[in-house]
Each structure stands twice: as C-alpha cells, then as structure tokens.
C-alpha cells in the first residue's frame, strides 16, 4: 500500500477489505457460470458512498502489428487513449458507469480515485485509439491488473496484455501473482523486473519479445470480450463433453452419435478469458513441430520392429488412432495440410501446371534455368496436362497467411536442399556431393542377422531428395508471394549428405549459408509458432532410387536404405527405409527435446509425428470432411454477402480431389510435465480436423463463425446438415459423425455399441464402444 498515494486517511480499511472479498467472490461465482449482475455490494436502500480515499495511477499500454514484414513480425508499442479504467466490482468485464471509470489520456495514463485499492480493468472500447498506429480499436477489449500488481507498482500501474495474462494465469492455475509473473517472464525470456513494465520503455530483444507476445495476447483477450459481448454459450459446442449438443435432434444428423443435451449457459467474463486460450478445447501452444513422414499405413508402422524408436514415442506420448489422409498421392495431402483442401489436385505435378488465366503464377520470374544463378534448376517453364487441373491455388485462405496475419510465425524446415537453390524447385543431383552408404549392424534393422549396407559404397547426391510436392504451402500463390516466404523456409541438417553439401557445385553456395538452420533455430529459439519439419525423400520413408559405386569392386550398387516399400508393407516385412526414417525421426525429436525451448516448461511445445497418407486398398479411404468416394458433385463453397453459401463451380476437377488415402499413425509429444501421457483418442480425424485444430490452437478462427474456418475445415456435422443442398456429396450419409470435421480434442464420446469404421490400413479388429478415457491429447495438465 505504500506505493499508493493516499489523500485521506479515513475509516476505509473495512471497506477495502470488503470490496476485495466481494470482488473475489464474484469472480469465483463467475467461474461457475452464474449471473454476476447481482453482486451484493451494499444494502439496496441508501447505499453509503465510500470516500474516494485511494488514487491509483497508471497507464494502459498497447501493441500494434503491422503486416508485411519480410522477416520477423513487426510489432510496435504505444498506449490506448480513450480507454476507461475502473475497479470492475461486479466482474462483468465492463467499466459500468456506477463503477466510476476514468478515461485514459493521449499517453494512456489514468488516475483512478477509489475508496480502496482493488484489481482494475481497462475497458478499451471501439472509440479508444491505439497510439502505436493511430488506429481506433476495432473491437472492444479488456486488460486487467491484479490487486497484487496494483499494490506492487508505484504511481504507474501498467495495465497491459501481459498484466492481463498474469491475472488470467492465476485463475487458470489457482496460483498467485508472483508465481505467474515469474512464469511469464520465464516464458518470454525476460527479467522478472521487466515483464510488468511499460513495454515502450524497454529496448532490443526484451522489447521485441514483449511486444510480439502483447500483440498475440491482445488478440486473445479481444476475442474473449467478443465472446462475452456476444453471449456465447460456454463451452464451445465442439468442446462439450460427449459431443456437439447443437446437433442433438437436428434433421439430417445421425441420431445414434448425436445424444448430448445442450445445458450450456452464456459465458461469463472469467470463462471467456480462459476460453479464448482454449478454443474448442484446444489449448494455446507456443510452438508446434509437425514432422512429416511418407506413405505408410498404420499396420506398416504400428509395432513395427523396423521402427522401434517411433513406436516408443507413440506409446510414450499420445496418439490419434483413427487418423485419415485426405488425398492421393502426396501433393494433395500436403496441400490439404496447408489449408484444409486440395482443390482438385490429384497428382504430384509442379505447382505451375495448368495455372493459367486468373490462376497464372504471380511470383515471377519463374525459377527456371535461364534465371541468374539457377542454371541447374529443373523447373519447367510450362506444364500442361491432359486433365487441365490448376496446381496454383490463388486467393484461398491457408495456415501460413493466417499465422503471419496474426503476428505469428511459421517455418518449414526442409532437409537436403541444394545450397543456393530456389526453394520453389526440386533439388537436383550433384556428383560432387558424396556420402557413404548407411551400414547397419546385426540387430539394428528389424532384427537383421547380417550386416545391411556396403561400407565401400559411395553415393553421389541423388536428385529429388527435396520435392516441392512435400511443401504444405507450395501450392498456394499467396504463400509463395508472401514477403516472409524466403525468410520462413529454412534448411534442416541430419542428411546423409550433410557433411558433403559444402562441396556442392550445382548452385553458388550463399555466403554464411547455414546447412542446419533448424539446429541453429532450436538453440536461438527463433523457430516458428507453426513448424513443418520435412525430411528428405530417404529420411521420410518415401524412398527414391539412390545408387553409387562400390569402390572396392567398381560395381554399381543401390543404397542400403532408400528403396521404397509398399504403403501397406506388413510390419514384419518392413524394410530398411523404415528403419532409416525411424532413426531420423529419433534424431529430430532428440534435437528438439534438447533445445532450450523444450526445456522451458513455461513454453508450451509439442511435436507431432505423422504421415501424409496411408494406403486404403479397401474400406474407407477417408473421413471427416472428405469428398465421399467417387462423388462427382463436390464443389467448394463461397459465402454470399448475406451469410448464406453458394457453390463455387470454378475449380476444374475439384470433385476428384479430397477423396483420401487411408489411415496412418499419428503421435503427439508434449514438453508439459503435467500433460497426459499415453492417452489414445480413437475418434475419427483427418488432415482437415488437424487444420481445424491448428486454427483453434493459434486462435485463427472463431467457432461461432463457420466462414472463419478455412476451406473444408469448416465442414462440421452441423455445418454440413445446414448446407446439405450445397454439399450433395454428403447426402444420404449413413454416419454423419464419420463424414464431418471436428477438432482433435476427444470431446466426442463414442457410443457403447458403436463399431469404428476403418480401412484395410488397420489390421486389428475395429473398436466397439468408447475409449478407456476421454483425455484430450492436447491438454496441458
């Protein structure tokens, strides 16, 4: 209290205590969902007006994100002018007039006279101005400062997104101000004494870290207020335990899987703050690493003696066990992972194929071999195919643009690039880059009894270790044209040829070239929020022809471990390439797990191990937003001005896309010590579910607005039922739950007598009934 200016010392201590207690009580009540409008502040008859004995002075800080950076996100600091500040006595997330709010000045400053110190809020309305960019605030927002902070800070209580986050975390974790202040400082990598200060007074990396986080938090808290002001029901429909309650009894929905009554109530302020960090039950993560592997059905990987390390990770971490690919072959799957749709791409062709008219490439010049420095480029200037399917997706929303637009970062880490190559081209062979064959001792490849591999075999770098078809953003014009495209696409080491890449001759090696930016970024922390980790076509288990010469015999020999095996190879048969991929995955996971990021438990970090596609020789090709087998009626939807939807007939071959290619293993590792381990979610999910999950994780979409979910990731059971005339591929469904998208949050409980649908990619009998637990694989604790 010594830090507060006390103008009058009167008999106010009792009131101070009461006010605090009441505020806290109402806060707690709010968590239970009760209406907070009847806070018993005083007898109703003639409320005594307590003397305004305490002056709280402070400032409300702001962050403003400017899109378009070609490097890190550009966030500047400032203040909110015209925000109101008060003690939110009724905890309704507003400065009501009877709470006697004061208004911030052009420097964000306020002086609040109150009867006693209390936790304060800044109610930032749409008239308020963010001085960082001079713009009026687009949607109402509220920042908070806890009483402990008010007490701690002198004449300047810094009300900021960071102070608000500390307040929120104390409630999320049942902890206190000092604990969460320290935790936030630890997470941001700043000093304890810095984290609650005016960000505008900080400099350098400390300021940059605080500003970037302030911008993200501002978005989260603004979203919380949007939910509150909209009176959203709590929790989100797709996070309700048991399943979406909105579809119970709904026409066009399979009744057997829509059984949950809707008992939700309008969200409270306190709930809204937590819910905005847990959209559809998917908690916010700071960093996610998605390790992409190739072409293996579940039965080929699960418990394979050729992949003991991946299996150890799968069983130690969490698994989705009914996870479906959405396309065939690679390119449509990666394209779907980038945005929740493949747009009718049904092959692995170059991204400019049949891209004409409005689809013509805009990132000119094309990276052809007549361009300076690209003499070795394999890129074909033109590509025309019989099916005339456009491979350059123009103007569609995608994860990359959405992440960047929110002031967050993405990375793709690609292995075995030719140093100096254009990322938009496949890598090429280089006879000057020579590696030894991998030699496996007995017992290291699926129980081999003889040595596998030839120690005398030298292998020149083959072509196509890096393929653009395996880049989840490559098909999207607005990704390749994004200012941060070059900055965000990075190298990854660990290649068989890594040590020899310095001898590369096909392109000029750029000065200061980092052959393993992935490793460097893990040390520096400069990884993205969203990271696609893309091994080369040997290390991802795809397989290509790699041949070299045995120096002892001068005979041409094929590399020991890069020959393809069938997508559904029996796990007893396996193949050396599976072990190769297993070893690579192990090295990537170990590298991440050794990083400062991973070992900072205040940072929420996850690793996903997944495959682009399985095999699906029989049974179901896909689920969950799929284009139901052999339908020819699927088209994308476009939203009309009045909110209704129409069919978009402009995408040639669209109805051949999104048909799926079976099931693969899908594992999640988390750095959170208290997170659930070894939990298994067998609900059906697809790449579209995962894209929806990522949108929730990074708060890129709003469950109350279907259109905010990109492309087919919006195809929830409710959305399909409401738009069935525009989505005729789903007509006559025998199981609308199976056909539709949901986030991977395990909220849906499988009915007791329900038999799982599955493809031939799973060799075990179909599960009947619910999972042993409904644990959410993403849960932080």
């Amino acid at each position, binding site marked *: 209290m010594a830090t507060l200016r006390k103008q009058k010392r009167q008999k106010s201590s009792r009131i101070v205590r009461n006010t605090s207690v009441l505020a806290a009580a109402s806060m707690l009540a709010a968590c239970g969902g009760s209406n907070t409008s009847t806070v018993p502040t005083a007898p109703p008859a003639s409320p005594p007006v307590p003397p305004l004995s305490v002056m709280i002075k402070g400032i409300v800080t702001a962050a403003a994100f400017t899109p378009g950076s070609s490097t890190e996100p550009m966030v500047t600091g400032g203040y909110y002018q015209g925000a109101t500040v008060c003690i939110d006595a009724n905890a309704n997330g507003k400065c009501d007039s009877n709470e006697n709010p004061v208004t911030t000045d052009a420097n964000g400053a306020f002086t609040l006279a109150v009867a006693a110190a209390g936790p304060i809020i800044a109610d930032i309305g749409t008239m308020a101005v963010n001085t960082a960019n001079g713009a009026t605030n687009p949607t109402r927002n509220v920042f908070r400062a806890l009483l402990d902070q008010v007490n701690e800070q002198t004449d300047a209580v810094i009300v900021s997104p960071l102070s608000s986050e500390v307040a929120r975390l104390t409630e999320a974790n049942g902890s206190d101000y000092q604990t969460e202040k320290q935790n936030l400082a630890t997470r941001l990598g700043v000093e304890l004494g810095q984290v609650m200060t005016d960000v505008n007074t900080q400099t350098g990396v400390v300021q940059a870290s605080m500003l970037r986080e302030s911008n993200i938090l501002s978005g989260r808290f603004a979203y919380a207020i949007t939910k509150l002001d909209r009176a959203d029901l709590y929790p989100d429909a797709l996070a309700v335990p048991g399943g979406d309650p909105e579809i119970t009894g709904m026409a*066009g929905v399979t009744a057997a899987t829509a059984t949950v009554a809707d008992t939700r109530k309008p969200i409270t302020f306190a709930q809204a703050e937590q819910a905005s960090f847990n959209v559809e039950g998917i908690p916010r993560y700071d960093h996610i690493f998605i390790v992409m592997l190739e072409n293996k059905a579940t039965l080929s990987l699960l418990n394979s003696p050729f992949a003991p390390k991946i299996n150890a990770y799968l069983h130690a971490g969490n698994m989705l066990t009914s996870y479906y690919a959405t396309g065939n072959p690679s390119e449509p799957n990666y394209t779907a992972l980038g945005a929740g749709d493949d747009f009718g791409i049904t092959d692995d062709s170059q991204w400019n194929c049949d891209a004409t008219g409005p689809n013509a490439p805009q990132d000119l010049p094309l990276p052809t071999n007549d361009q300076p420095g690209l003499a070795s480029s394999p890129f074909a200037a033109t590509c025309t195919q019989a099916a005339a399917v456009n491979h350059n997706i123009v103007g569609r929303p995608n994860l990359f643009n959405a992440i960047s637009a929110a002031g967050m970062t993405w990375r793709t880490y690609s292995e075995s690039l030719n140093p100096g190559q254009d990322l938009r081209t496949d890598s090429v062979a280089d006879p000057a880059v020579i590696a030894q064959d991998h030699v496996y001792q007995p017992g290291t490849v699926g129980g081999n009894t003889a040595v596998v591999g030839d120690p005398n075999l030298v292998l020149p770098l083959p072509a196509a270790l890096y393929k653009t078809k395996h880049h989840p953003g490559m098909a999207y014009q607005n990704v390749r044209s994004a200012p941060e495209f070059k900055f965000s696409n990075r190298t990854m080491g660990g290649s068989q040829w890594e040590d020899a890449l310095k001898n590369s001759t096909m392109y000029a090696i750029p000065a200061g070239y980092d052959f393993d930016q992935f490793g460097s970024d893990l040390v520096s922390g400069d990884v993205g929020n969203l990271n696609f980790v893309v091994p080369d076509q040997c290390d991802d288990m795809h397989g290509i022809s790699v041949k070299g010469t045995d120096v002892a015999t001068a005979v041409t020999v094929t590399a020991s471990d890069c020959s393809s095996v069938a997508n559904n190879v029996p796990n007893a048969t396996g193949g050396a390439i599976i072990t190769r991929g297993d070893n690579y995955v192990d090295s990537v996971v170990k590298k991440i797990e050794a990083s400062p990021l991973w070992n900072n438990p205040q940072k929420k970090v996850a690793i996903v191990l997944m495959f682009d596609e399985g095999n699906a020789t029989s049974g179901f090709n896909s689920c969950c937003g799929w284009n139901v087998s052999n339908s020819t009626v699927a088209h994308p939807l476009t939203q009309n001005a009045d909110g209704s939807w129409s069919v978009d007939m402009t995408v040639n071959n669209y109805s051949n896309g999104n*048909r799926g290619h079976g099931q693969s293993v899908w594992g999640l590792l988390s750095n959170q010590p208290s997170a659930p381990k070894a939990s298994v979610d067998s609900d059906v999910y697809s790449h579209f579910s995962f894209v929806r999950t990522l949108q929730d994780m990074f708060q890129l979409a709003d469950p109350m607005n279907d259109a905010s979910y990109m492309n087919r990731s919006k195809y929830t059971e409710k959305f399909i039922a409401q738009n069935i005339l525009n989505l005729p591929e789903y007509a*006559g469904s025998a199981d609308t739950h199976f056909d539709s998208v949901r986030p991977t949050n395990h909220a849906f409980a499988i009915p007791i007598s329900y038999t799982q649908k599955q493809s031939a990619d799973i060799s075990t009998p179909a599960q009947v009934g619910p999972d042993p637990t409904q644990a959410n694989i993403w849960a932080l604790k």
Partner: protein
Amino acid sequence: MRAVTLATISSLALAACGGRSGSDGASPEAAVKFRATPPLSLAAQVGRKIFFDKALSASGKMSCATCHDPNHAYGPPNDLAVQPGGRDLTTPGLRAVPSLRYKEYTPAYADLLDNPDGISVPGPGGGFTWDGRADTLAQQAGVPLLSAFEMANAGAADVVAKLRASAYSKLFRQAFGDDVFNDTTAAFNEASAALQAYQLEDSSFHPYSSKFDLYAGNKIGGAMTPAEARGLAVFSNPKIGNCSSCHYQGAGRNGSSALFTDFSYEAIGVPRNARIRANLDAAYVDMGVCGPLRTDHNPASPAAPEVHCGMFGTPTLRNVATRKVFFHNGVIHSLEQAIRFYNTRDTNPEIWYPNVGGMPRGSPDPSFPQYGLVTTQYDGGTVQKFDDLPAGYHSNIDTQMPLDARAAGSSPPMTEQNIADLICFLSTLTDGYKPSAPSPISGPCVN
C-alpha cells in the same frame, strides 16, 4: 442458410434411381445417387446418336450398343464367347466383348506404366481393348467401326458418308463445323471423339451406383452383410483370394478409387476356346499384347522370347456378376466358374485343360469336380496345361496368388465358403442397387 433433412435428399435421389433405358435404345438415365448429371456437350450428343445408330454398320443391323448393351453394363447381352458381325452378321469375332463402363480413368498403354497403387513395380498397363492397342476411347471407337467381323465399314470414307446421310448430320455439323464432312479423316476422327465424349460425359458409363459404392461412401443402405464382408476379406487378403492385387480397389490415378482394375496386363493361361472359329486353325494363337491383333510387341521371329506374349488386360470387376462370358476368349461362362478357375487352375489342371492320350472313364469319380471345362475324367495321358500359349512363353505366366503355381493335387487357396462369400461380395459391385427395406433376412449372402 437452409436446413434440409438428409432423409429428404436421399429419398429424392433414390427415387431417381429407378430410371432405365427407354425402348428406343436412347441413353439410359442410369441410377444416380450422388453423381452429377450435367447436360451433354454437343460432341457427346453426337456420340450418343452414333452409339445407337445401326445404319453405321455394313449389315445395317449393328450399332455400338448391339454388343455394348446399356442394359448389360455396356457389355454383351448374351453368353456368346464372341459376337457375330460383318456384312451379314455371320462373321464371328475373335474375343469376348468387354464392358465399356468405368473406362474414364484408363491411361494410354505403356510397357512400364506406374501402378495406380503408387508402389507396385511398373509394368505393362493401360490402353483399351484386351491388348491395349488403342490409346484412347476415341481410338478404340474406330476399331469396331472398321473391323470386318464387326460393323464392317470399308473405310473411314464409308463411315463418313453414312454420317453425312444420317438424321443427325446437322447436329454433327453444329458440333464440328459446317464443312466437317469435306475432310474424311477429320470427320472420322470427330466421330471417334464424339463417341469418347459421350462415354466420358454420360454418367451411365460410370454410374457408381452399386451397393459397394454405398458402402465405400458411408451411405445409407451400404452396410455389408456378414457374407459380403467376408467376401471382401477374401478378395483383399493376399494369402487367400488376392484378387485386389490386380483388380485394384484402392485409391488410384487422378482421384479415382475402387475401379477394380489396375489397368495391368498379365498372362494367366486361360484355356483355349474351341468355340472361337479362328481357333479351329491350330496355328492361330491369340497372344494378346504380343499379337497378332496388336503388332508392336510381336516376337522378333516365331517363338522368339517376348515377355508380353499371353498377356491380356485386367478388366474392371464392376458388374462382373451380370456377365455371362469371362476372360478375353469367353471360354468361361459364369462368375463362379471364373473364380474356380483361379482357385484350381494349378491344383486341378485336368478340369480346365484338355487331356491328350488318356483313357476317358465312363463316369468320373464322385470326387471329380464337375465345375470345370473338362468334366470327363481320364486315366493316363497328359493334361495340356496352358494350351492356348506356346510352350516357350509359359514362363510369362504370372505366379501371384491365387495362381501361385502350386502343385497339382495340393489344396487350393480358397475354401468353398471363401468362394461363396467372394461371389456375394462381387455381387455388391452391380450397378443400380436399390437398398430394400427391410433388409433381406435369408439367402446365400445374408449371414
């Protein structure tokens, strides 16, 4: 947003499934459940006219639809191994009529075609006709028009003259230009292209309206019976039926799936069919990809090594239960017999291939199967296994399951139950399926 019940949609769609071809032989309005039916292009409209035009044959009695009957999945309407054709409809053909259904994803022939499963070793595949010698449906269309034992036109000019005189010549001009008939080659090519357009555009050539499609599409009415599900397992299991190895049912090229063919060519040693007139000449051997109809893979000299000899295309198995002739030479006449050939070609070759030098028994042992092509039991003699392929090419015979060259007298890969179940499953591939309500509770394919 309009909310509409799924039940309404599906009942409307099901109601539309009843349509069938009219008596005038016009295009069948085939069952369409969740398939689009956009209007035919002008070229396709011309193609439809041509397809049903008997005047385009020398006999005046044969159209494309005569052999490729829309009421029989665009396959033969009868059980004749080969159909009669020519000027007087008395000249027998050389091969069984294939179905024209589900050809829309077939690529041109290549010696090393990538398998649609994306992983099998590339091999001979693609193309049209039993030997793949036509690259496109348009090319294929020209074959019967000019074949002496089919529509028997003297040449392209003959066909074009008939088109010019047809009732739809105006439509033809509208589609391809006023002066299209001035150039015989161009006009013939346009006619072929029109037939292709018709087959690609008209959904009756690819209706995907079988029970299997309901099953694979997660649709009401698609729940398989236990027998059908067991049959699917037999079909897929590489250790039992292994049918799906060539009759690929997974996801394939260009978004296709469940075509029940991988477009590949294999030599499986189908017995010679003495009922084909050309086969009366012992020197005549139809060896598929290596000739004689196809001419680009012929042995360099008679009996010279050539890996393509004996290879014929893998047909789709969609609608297979409706066929009455099987394999390229139509020697087999029921689905069950075709499956039994696969099952016992190696274990009981004596019931599929002729015996030379043996003594026929008056009546066979009770255990001697009667489902083969040879129902007479012989004592002694030699079974002429692979009697329709010169001995030098027997090494071309594929050895995949279930034709894994196991010893005569050993156990066949499939049990009687497997065979019964497999037939049940294959019957789910018949288009025009209408789920009955309530579901049948008895019959061979229920439990």
